[in-house]
């Protein structure tokens, strides 16, 4: 891990640990205040708990021009991106995409090209209906099964390494429930007071980023559910596409696509309005590229549905499937990976909380070494 990034995060965390004013904002601070010295693993965990809500930055009396020059959201964002790059497998690929939107665009074009080539050379075997008239079901599976399995394997390898880095213990169901609960509500973007975060207009609290993120996350999950429903209907029940409007894939997929398109568009606008120096400036291009890719996946999917019966269909199919292919393959190496790392960090934090409550109930019978402080501002 680059010493300067981790060392800078450590310097800042030590100042925060002597202050503690931000304890109520999010999951980072209670976890931070539990440590006295910060290992690289501690800092990696804190970095992945941070959602860059920026509440602590705008509340901080030690930001520049103060000589302490605190900017914890940026310091943690840099450690975070570095941790994703380091834990990705293969790592060398990740270093290109996290910081560079151009590479993402290039991957997208490559995805288009591949799909055009596949459609052109394999095409349909003659008998397909709907999209299968352009590209047969078997050809689709031949392309997408490996493209789906590879990221799963890659992320599994990464998470194993990551879990070791952050000192994770054996996972129990209650920890997973705790982590999922935090993620489902995006509680860390609501802040302890529930007014939201500081993102698009300095210290003004708003739920915009939280809601945009919810649209993206739930939109994506609905699209994923739509695809899964289609797969099950195809293989389990012999019900083949195309599906009508009142079918599960459509009922899940259309709202999902709309939410994903709207959410990513909103996210782009918020990101453009935000103060870039409170985040990881090196990741800006990569993050933006990824959000736009996700947006393209959603929009092209919706357009494909709209023009399904026309002559434009094969063109749109190639564009949509090309973007989906790139998206899948890039999942372990782009911002998409953050969902997995964050969830792991939240599960780890749920473990910390249960360890801590056991420990403190045990200790409280003996002593509370910090309970005797008072009388200072």
């Amino acid at each position, binding site marked *: 891990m680059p010493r300067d990034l981790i060392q800078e995060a450590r310097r800042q965390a030590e100042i925060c640990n002597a*202050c503690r004013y931000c304890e109520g904002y999010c999951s980072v601070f209670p976890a931070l205040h539990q440590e006295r010295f910060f290992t690289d693993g501690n800092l990696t965990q804190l970095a992945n708990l941070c959602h860059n809500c920026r509440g602590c930055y705008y509340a901080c*009396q030690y930001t520049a021009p103060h000589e302490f020059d605190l900017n914890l959201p940026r310091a943690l964002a840099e450690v975070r991106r570095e941790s994703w790059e380091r834990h990705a497998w293969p790592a060398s690929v990740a270093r290109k995409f996290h910081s560079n939107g151009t590479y993402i665009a290039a991957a997208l074009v490559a995805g288009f090209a591949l799909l055009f080539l596949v459609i052109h050379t394999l095409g349909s075997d003659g008998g397909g209906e709907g999209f299968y008239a352009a590209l047969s079901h078997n050809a689709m599976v031949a392309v997408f099964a490996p493209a789906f399995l590879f990221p799963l394997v890659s992320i599994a390898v990464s998470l194993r390494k990551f879990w070791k880095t952050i000192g994770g213990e054996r996972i129990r169901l209650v920890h997973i429930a705790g982590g999922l609960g935090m993620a489902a509500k995006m509680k860390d973007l609501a802040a302890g007071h529930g007014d939201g975060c500081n993102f698009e207009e300095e210290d003004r609290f708003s739920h915009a980023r939280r809601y945009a993120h919810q649209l993206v996350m739930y939109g994506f999950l609905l699209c994923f559910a739509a695809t899964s429903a289609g797969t099950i209907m195809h293989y389990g029940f012999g019900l083949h596409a195309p599906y009508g409007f009142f079918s599960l894939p459509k009922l899940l997929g259309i709202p999902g696509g709309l939410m994903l398109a709207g959410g990513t568009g909103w996210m782009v606008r918020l990101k453009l309005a935000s103060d870039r120096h409170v985040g990881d400036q090196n990741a800006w291009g990569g993050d933006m590229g990824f959000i736009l890719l996700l947006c393209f996946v959603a929009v092209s999917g919706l357009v494909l549905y709209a023009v399904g019966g026309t002559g434009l269909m094969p063109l749109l199919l190639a564009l949509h499937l090309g973007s989906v292919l790139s998206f899948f393959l890039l999942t372990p190496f782009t911002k998409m990976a953050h969902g997995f790392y964050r969830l792991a960090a939240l599960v780890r934090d749920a473990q910390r909380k249960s360890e801590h409550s056991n420990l403190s109930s045990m200790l409280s019978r003996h002593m*509370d070494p910090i309970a005797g402080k008072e009388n200072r501002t």
Partner: protein
Amino acid sequence: MTSQYDIVVIGGGNAALCAAMTAAEAGARVLILETSPKAYRGGNSRHTRNFRCMHGGPLGPLVEDYSEEEYFADLLKVTGGKTDEHLARLAIRTSEECLPWMEEHGVRFQPSLSGTLSLARTNAFFMGGGKSLVNAYYRTAEKLGVDVLYEAHVTHLELDGDQITRVDYTHKDQQHRTEPRSVIVASGGFQADTDWLTRAWGEPAKNFLIRGTPYNRGVVLADLLAQGVSQVGDPTQCHAVAIDGRAPKFDGGIVTRLDCVPFSIVVNKYAERFYDEGEDVWPKRYAIWGRLVANQPDQVGYVIIDAKSLELFMPSVFPPLKADTLEELAGMMDLPADKLHSTVDTFNTACGDTSAFHPTELDGVATTGIEPPKTNWARPITEPPFYGYSLRTGVTFTYLGLKVDDNAQCSTEHGKIRNLWAAGETMAGSILGQGYLAGFGMTIGTVFGRIAGREAAAYAA
């Protein structure tokens, strides 16, 4: 020139903002003149973290109750009786209605911070600390139509008989004068003016660190006192505590505190102990250590602890110096190594049975036969690695200020000044003669800021 504003508020911290919002809600047109740039707005309020609040039952983040009598008794303890009872009780009684008012104006509270459990009943903590309170108030004030000028330096208030007729200030290198109907002074004490502090306290003050804003230079306070506005508070005194010697000259704030003294020995630059480090629990003693250190050569002290005490106190902002031997530690701190060794040896020999050691209670684990003694938590310094901190005097605020009445109104020896009010640190000497009670500064600022805003708006209407 008649001002387009009814009221000018001088200062940009908690008291100024409470006054400005209250006045604007009463219909007044208000201008805030804040001397600092926007990034440093809020004066010492940006370093605060809580509000001490009376309450008859659970209120917001506060548990149980905290009566006027108990609150006042707590105040008397720390001020040694140097308290204006009438104004203090007014502040205490009004604090209860302030908390919901603060929430309505954008302040958000959080449960008592880790390490401050003992304050959960008496002090309401701001989520994010004082700067987040200041941010919220600026947003609310701007919504109420209050205008704010940053880097606006007030140079003079013209007092003519019983009223202020003019406010002079510079902004963007331009001189301005304005004639509002009412003026509220909420621009703090003078502790950041090192020359003034040195005149008041003496030469050692040059080595003092200022824990808060560098913008409390007392310009308006001096200007008003020179024109005969009534003053209050001991002009030579300031509230000072012992803080990490590596803290910046200004604005080090909360993080520079050090809580390790009770578990240590403290020596001066000649490696000699000079006071009982274990006299009482640290919260009750950290203020007197500001003075003790101020009286040592070069106004510096050195704290020595060993490995067994390292985790008994809140983490420090800078890591301690660390060495495997006392000689090495002495070298890092520029202390005479032989002398430090003999001081520690003498201390260690004077320690007795330590089995009753208890870090959070007066445990009576004391030395025998040395001067000064250590009367609690006296454990020999034997276990390497050894750790060291330097201690310096950190000034929190000054006591000299403007004398006000129940309505926060200022006066001269001839009577009230019709259109001048004061709030916050600049008049806190009217209530606190010495000492300090955590969170009481914000109580004074909020209560008297609102009173000043109300009165100034009523006069201007």
